[in-house]
Structures are given as structure tokens and as C-alpha cells.
């Protein structure tokens, strides 16, 4: 079980924004983090990794507390059991593929695991090459393998497939999912790609301006490619919050939580049928 309650004031291009996220999910899942650029996805990922200090936070993974502002606990990135794949891969240019992986070994850790990872990731042919000589997809595989050397519990991926071509993307998705299962990971993945999220994620969290706008299965968040993304549902429950309301809908066999503004929420009540249409900024109640 991972608990995540984070608050952080961010300076976005459109002015100051409050990243305010409260999430909980079971371990072993792949969580997709989606939303427009500037919504706070990368900041959230960096806060989880310990690379960015939150104003106020409680981050807990199983029974380990990584951050608790109230108790003044703030583990350094070195102390959290995480793997992180950066958007630019962050491979060390002065080391070969094998050396990049070996550098990641903990003191006294058996280096056989590096061989195993090189094997799994099909990097045998490339192990003595330097990162600059590799293609995007190859670099991606090295970065993934390196992030797993220390046997992390949580794998954080910042738009891992944005820089590789379509063909390679499909292969790497399967590769990531296979690693996720094999090493019993919990994975948080930032992605803009609906297909990618549908194929990889168990749950999708959509952020908008620092707040969680939707949570649900990828199918419910991205309903089957109807061009206008319009659908009908029955309101199961309405939860009022400070600046709007969470409306839980039953859509076919799926349940979907949708955030609507206070104005739109006025007059809605459970049991009512509702037609929703997606637009750029969210869901329009019709």
C-alpha cells in the first residue's frame, strides 16, 4: 500500500499553482499519471523520489515512512527504495553500458545480478559500448536495467517512451510490463499516450493544475475512442469538495469519478442520468 499526500506551491508559467494531491493505491499496480504539461506530474514524481522538497507531505510505502512533515521525517533519495528513469535517461556518458549498471550496485552486492539484467534486457551485444553510440530505444533499455540493479520496490518512469519511435514503443511497453511483473514492482508512469496507458496502466490518475481531476481504470478515463468522447451514466454518489464536486457515475459496467465545478454540480443528485462530453479542460455536463 502506498500513501501519498503532497502539497507544494509551484511556479508555473501561468502563475503560482498549488500541487495538492492525496492518493492511495495497492502495491503491485502500474499507476499512470496523465494530464496536460504544467499540471504538476513531473513535480509529483520528483517529490516521491526525494529530488524535490514538498511544503507539506506524508509519503508512505508499505510500513516505511519516506516523508512525514509533521514528524520532520524526510528521507534522502539515497534512502528510498526507488528506481527512476529520467526523460533524458541520464546515462553516465563516461561509462559503458555494463559500467553504468555496475556503478548502480550497492556495496557488497553480487554483480551476477548485472549479468542477469543485461541478459533480460538483451544488452549483451551492447554492454561494452558507450551510451552516446546507442539509439533511443537502446538507451531506454539501459536506463531501465540500471534503475533495477538495486532491486527497488517502486519504479518511477518520467515519460519513458516519448523519445523513441512508434515501433520501438510497442516493444518497450511489453518489456516494461514484463519487468514490472518479474521484479514485483509498483510502478508510477507519466504518459500522455492513451494507448500506452490503456495497455500498461491498472489505474490512471489525471492531474490538472496541481489537483487530481480523475481517477479510474484507463478504460473509464479514456472511453472507447468515440470521436467526441461522449457518454451517458447514472450518478451513484456526489461528494462536495471546496471548489467543486466529485461525481461518481455508473457507466455500463464501469464506475467513473468525474470532477465538476460547483456551478455544474448544482442541481445534480444521485440516481439522475447524466450525459458527459469531454472537452479540453475536462467534462462538460449536458
Amino acid at each position, binding site marked *: 500500500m502506498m500513501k501519498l499526500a503532497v502539497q507544494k506551491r509551484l511556479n508555473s508559467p501561468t502563475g503560482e499553482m498549488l500541487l495538492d494531491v492525496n492518493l492511495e493505491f495497492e502495491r503491485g499496480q502500474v499507476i499512470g499519471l496523465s494530464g496536460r504539461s504544467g499540471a504538476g506530474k513531473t513535480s509529483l514524481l520528483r517529490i516521491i523520489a526525494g529530488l524535490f522538497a514538498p511544503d507539506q507531505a506524508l509519503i508512505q510505502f508499505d510500513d516505511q515512512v519516506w516523508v512525514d512533515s509533521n514528524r520532520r521525517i524526510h528521507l534522502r*533519495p*539515497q534512502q528510498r527504495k526507488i*528506481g*527512476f528513469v529520467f*526523460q533524458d535517461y*541520464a546515462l*553516465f556518458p563516461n561509462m559503458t553500458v555494463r559500467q553504468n549498471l555496475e*556503478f548502480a550496485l550497492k556495496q557488497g552486492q553480487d554483480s551476477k545480478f548485472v549479468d542477469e539484467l543485461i541478459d533480460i534486457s538483451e544488452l549483451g551485444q551492447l554492454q561494452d559500448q558507450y551510451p552516446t553510440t546507442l539509439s533511443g530505444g537502446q538507451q531506454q533499455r539501459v536506463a531501465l536495467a540500471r534503475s533495477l540493479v538495486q532491486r527497488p520496490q517502486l519504479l518511477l518512469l518520467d515519460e519513458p517512451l516519448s523519445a523513441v519511435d512508434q515501433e520501438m514503443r510497442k516493444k518497450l511497453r511489453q518489456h516494461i510490463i514484463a519487468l514490472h511483473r518479474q521484479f514485483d514492482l509498483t510502478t508510477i508512469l507519466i504518459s500522455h499516450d492513451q494507448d500506452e496507458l490503456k495497455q500498461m496502466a491498472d489505474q490512471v490518475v489525471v492531474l490538472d493544475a496541481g489537483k487530481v481531476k480523475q481517477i479510474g481504470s484507463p478504460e473509464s478515463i479514456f472511453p472507447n475512442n468515440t470521436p467526441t468522447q461522449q457518454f451517458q451514466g447514472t450518478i451513484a454518489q456526489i461528494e462536495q469538495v471546496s471548489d467543486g464536486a466529485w461525481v461518481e457515475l455508473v457507466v455500463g459496467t464501469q464506475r467513473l469519478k468525474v470532477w465538476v465545478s460547483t456551478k455544474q454540480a448544482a442541481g445534480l443528485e444521485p440516481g439522475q442520468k447524466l450525459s458527459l462530453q469531454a472537452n479540453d479542460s475536462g467534462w462538460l455536463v449536458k
Partner: protein
Amino acid sequence: MIDWSPLLLTFRLALITTVLLFVVSLPLAYWLAYSKARFKAVVEALVSMPLVLPPTVLGFYLLLAFSPNNAFGQWLEANLGLRLVFSFEGLVFASMIYSLPFMVHPIQSGLANLSPSLKEAAYILGKSRWTTLRRVLLPNIKPSLLTGIVLAFAHTIGEFGVVLMIGGNIPGLTKVAAIAVYDEVESLNYAAANQYSLVLFVISFIILLLVYLFNGGHLKRFWL
């Protein structure tokens, strides 16, 4: 035949200055590259001062500070047995200050130009700051390190004003080649002046040429 001791002294001074300066500049450049402290601008300005200040001004204040007639000079002499005016040790110290920006700026800029994710990746892999610096950051800014080391060395060879103010012109002790040239010209001994000058000219050229060849234009960024 010219007296070679000023030239040997020059290179001894440049070598010692460069080694000590590297040790001092590395933490300073690291701090300047990554710190978000408000007073960083003040430190940056101070480090850059030798670039614009007439060397005589620098030499003058060092002379005042280290003079045995003043409190600080007395303290140095009483506690550390160091006399920094008209001595080789004093020259080393003055040279370090004089060449500080030439060592700090390339290293600082090299570190700042590295993708921040390299450092972060190493931290996430459980590596300490020291290990990260030694095995990830420094190996990836080798051209900047070379530039800093060579510029500091070459700049120390070229110093004149500071040496004149704080070192004077004591043969074998503080009479470096640049001073020797001045000295020979003063006594109208142009042939000797020319020999010193030629040696300095050729060696400086070779050093800079090597840097340009190694770094392939990398040096340009640090000459304003």
C-alpha cells in the same frame, strides 16, 4: 647566456599555484554551480574581481594585509611563522587569488552545463555526493577541468603587477621571468630581455595551442 633562475622560478610558482588552486577551486566551483543561496552573487562577484581589478590594486592590499607592521601580518608571523611579503609563499598566495577566476569559472560552468539528471540519477542509485562528484561529475567535465588547470597555469606565468607589489625583485626568490624582462629593459639590456620574452612567448603559445587542440574550441567560452 641568460640566468635561467627567473624562468625556473616562474614555472615552479605556476605549478604550485595551479595545484593548490585546483584543490581550493573545486569545492568553490561546486558550490557556485549548485547553490541557490542569496549571497551567491556576492561570492561570484568577489571571485571575478581579479579579472577587472588592476593587479597593482590587488598587490597593494595584499601588501598592506601581510605587512609585518600590521596586525594580520604579525599574527601570521607569530602563529604560523609565515611572512608573506617579499617571499615565495606570499607569491603563491597572491597568485592563487589573482588566478582564481581562471580556475573557478571553467569548472563552475562545466558543472552547470551538465544535465542535472546525471547527479540525481546517481543519488537515486544510492551514491553519496562525494562518490557522485568523483565518478560521475568530474569525469564528464574533463575538458573544463583541463581548461581551468591550463588557464590558471598560463595566467600565473603572465602575472606581473601583483608580483611586483608583493614580491619585489629578489633574485632566486621572487624575481620571476616577467619581472626579469622588465629589469633587463630598465638596464637597457635588450638582448637578455628578448631571450626571456621569447621563451615566455613560445611556451605560452604552445600551452594554449595544446588546449585548443584537445578541447576543439572549448576554450573560447571562457575568454570574454
